[in-house]
């Protein structure tokens, strides 16, 4: 009787599994996201993930190229007046939104007005407040923005209230996308743009499917379809790739060595440089980190080179906040590992027996093992660091309120300009209200000059000067600029690295077997 039951059970299991054989692969590119996007409304594009996805369905006046360069998009060309305040854009002809209506200069004006409109409640309006008349428009004192002038359908003038060199870069950011006003009511659900991909279906928390925009004005995608599946777990994403269900994978940092040695995919692993900085913010307003010597001791007592080599595959040591490619100097000396000097500095400023402090970490940090290595380095010179882990929201609130003595965080560039690593992070008004409470009037002056100067040697030398000041003042423990390792399936060709997050639109990727 026992075997009778066993037979029934085995037949049941066999039928169940045999009936569920894996389906043939879907057509087109199959990619993954670690979490869902917030929506398709450019005015609310505040996170990297949503920005990346929006760049597929919207065009901008200009776009970031593979590296730090800007390339024309809706604007076929542009010029800047000698006083650095007036941009004149020529709008490309023959560009259409997904519904077939043409893109004109009026659409550009409406798109920018919408971000500034108080009714939109866009957290991104800071991007356009430098336009002449923007503040009056926001305050309801004017029904139009004086600095946005349409000469005709294909010519637009944007006047700034003062010279501001990063403005042109702002125009390539997700929130500067040109929207089709006819679809604005449902824009968060259904993108209303004219980009190279069209949304087919967004299953929230599940997948986002796109098809190629066959009427795209430029060189469109090679593949007819693109699907992003939302897979929160890094290990599951790796398994999906290995099972052949994903075409591209961003390798979790703890798995890089395994993938490099992978017999089938090892050769396809590529390092992708990114514009970011990983750091430990030190609260400069309260003891012990109000003393620059203690901040220096924190930097000198970390063996960053060793940790980078052993724990952070592919990173580059940071010499200040600005990445070398934007600093335009690759041989800047980094702070050395010198625990003896760190100990001396601690003694000098009244901490001969070391000190106790806290390091705050937000979310489920993938780099937790790195933080523990730091803890060990610091304890060697008597600095006992307690790690405080909290969820991302609590962490962010705490940093904003200036609560953590130290916090571990990273910053990814919105646009490839050194100014993006200086103003939002170290300008006194920003740092004192949102970050680690660092204020330096001299640095503020330099940052303001960098903002107003046009790109050139004078501006570059000011950037280098600002970076040097920060390296001397060490308001952070500067860690590294960390790239990612990506792997593509052998059937996928045409993968090109992009330096800025929203430059990747998956146009050149092609699969051999469709």
């Amino acid at each position, binding site marked *: *009787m026992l075997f009778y039951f066993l037979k029934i*059970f085995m037949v049941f299991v066999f039928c169940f599994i045999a009936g*569920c054989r894996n389906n043939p692969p879907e057509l087109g590119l199959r990619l993954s996201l670690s979490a869902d996007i917030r929506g398709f409304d450019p005015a*609310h594009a505040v996170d990297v993930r949503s920005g990346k996805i929006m760049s597929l369905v919207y065009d901008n006046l200009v776009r970031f190229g593979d590296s730090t360069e800007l390339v024309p998009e809706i604007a076929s060309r542009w010029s800047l007046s000698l006083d650095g305040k007036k941009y004149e854009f020529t709008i490309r002809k023959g560009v259409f939104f997904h519904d077939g209506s043409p893109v004109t200069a009026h659409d550009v004006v409406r798109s920018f007005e919408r971000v500034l409109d108080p009714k939109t409640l866009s957290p991104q309006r800071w991007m356009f407040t430098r336009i002449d008349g923007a503040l009056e428009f926001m305050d309801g004192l004017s029904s139009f923005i004086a600095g946005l002038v349409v000469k005709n359908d294909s010519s637009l003038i944007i006047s700034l209230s003062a010279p501001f060199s990063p403005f042109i870069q702002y125009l390539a950011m997700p929130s500067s996308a040109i929207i089709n006003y006819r679809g604005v009511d449902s824009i968060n659900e259904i993108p209303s743009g004219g980009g190279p991909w069209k949304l087919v279906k967004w299953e929230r928390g599940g997948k986002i499917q796109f098809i190629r925009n066959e009427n795209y004005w430029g060189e469109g995608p090679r593949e007819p379809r693109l699907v992003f*599946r939302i897979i929160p777990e890094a290990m599951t994403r790796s398994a999906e790739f290995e099972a052949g269900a994903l075409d591209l994978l961003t390798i979790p940092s703890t798995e890089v060595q395994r993938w490099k040695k992978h017999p089938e995919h090892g050769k396809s692993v590529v390092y992708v440089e990114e514009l970011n900085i990983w750091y430990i913010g030190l609260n400069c307003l309260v003891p012990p980190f109000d003393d620059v010597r203690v901040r220096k001791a924190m930097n000198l007592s970390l063996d960053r080179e060793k940790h980078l080599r052993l724990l952070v595959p592919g990173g580059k040591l940071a010499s200040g906040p600005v990445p070398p490619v934007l600093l335009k100097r690759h041989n800047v000396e980094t702070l050395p590992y010198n625990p003896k000097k760190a100990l001396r500095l601690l003694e000098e400023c009244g901490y001969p027996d070391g000190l106790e402090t806290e390091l705050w970490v937000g979310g489920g940090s993938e780099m937790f093992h790195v933080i523990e290595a730091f803890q060990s380095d610091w304890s060697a010179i008597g600095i006992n660091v307690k790690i405080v882990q909290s969820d991302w929201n609590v962490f*962010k609130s705490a940093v904003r309120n200036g609560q953590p003595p130290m916090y571990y965080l990273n910053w990814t560039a919105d646009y490839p300009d050194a100014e993006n690593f200086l103003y*939002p992070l170290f300008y006194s008004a920003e740092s004192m209200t949102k970050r680690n409470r660092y204020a330096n009037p001299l640095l503020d002056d330099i940052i303001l000059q960098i903002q107003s100067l046009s790109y050139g040697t004078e501006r570059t030398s000011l950037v280098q000067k600002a970076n040097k000041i920060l390296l001397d003042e060490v308001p952070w423990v500067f860690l590294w600029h960390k790239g990612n390792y990506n792997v593509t399936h052998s059937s996928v060709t045409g993968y090109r690295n992009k330096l800025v997050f929203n430059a990747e639109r998956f146009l050149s990727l092609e699969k051999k077997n469709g």
Partner: protein
Amino acid sequence: MGKYVFNRVLQVLPVIAGVLIISFVLMVVLPGDPVLSMVGERYDENTVEIMRKKLNLDKPLMIRMGMFFENIIKGDLGNSFISGRPVVKEILEKLPNTFVLAVGAMVVAVLVGVFLGMVTSLFPGSWFDKTILVLALTGVSAPVFWTGLVFILLFGVYLGWLPPTGYGGIEHLVLPAFTLGLRSAAQITRLTRSAMLETLGQDYIRTAQSKGLPWWKILIKHALPNSMIPVLTVIGTDFGSYLSGAVLTESIFGWPGVGRLALGAIMSRDFPVVQGTVLFMAMMFICVNLIVDILYGVIDPRLRAERHN
């Protein structure tokens, strides 16, 4: 029966109110700021204040709670802070996925658990019985994230029989349903076995055997139904919790269900979605338990008579 169900529903109302008050207070007391999840990194203070006002976060706790309950009574759970969409829509969108996964897991649990429990009870002390008991213990002890990853690697990557993750067809359901249902299956196996052992020793079973009834009839018609009361309790509790969302299983298998929705909402302090999912979860749990209570009566005539009296 009607009066019994009505009384039970009445008892449920204060429970739901209590759950909502506690979850509301907990969310408000928790540190963090929902607006910070919405504004990115380069916000200006003015925008933050306007948003806070728009979301009524500037109002005192009691007023917010009053507004919340007033809306609930009107049947309005509000809009998500993050997506701006109605909470009901957000939950209803995820509900079919959660329901499919919960039913799939329960089917696995009941089929495997009852079958193995029944068979092992027929051969107590045999090698088969011992093996299944060890496996059942392993099943109860194994963490879901571990089982899930092992299944993904084994059946999705190495054998390639099933898609490792995703959702859609039945082939996508197998692995998450087994992962989620295995724990209940193990528990049901153990409970069915012990209940069946007790039942099989009863006089009426001996009577049935002496009447010359076929063994399968004795098992299915007489022994099994009388052993199902404790099993039904486990089914009820587990099914209720599956319907409330299985966060770990949903995360590992990329399954877009209510559990992940709730987790995301808690992380971003999306109060309306948290409240909505808590309300939904409480109601699911209560409904399933009510159904189980009614089923007790269906299975056991003694209980039916007791309730009637």
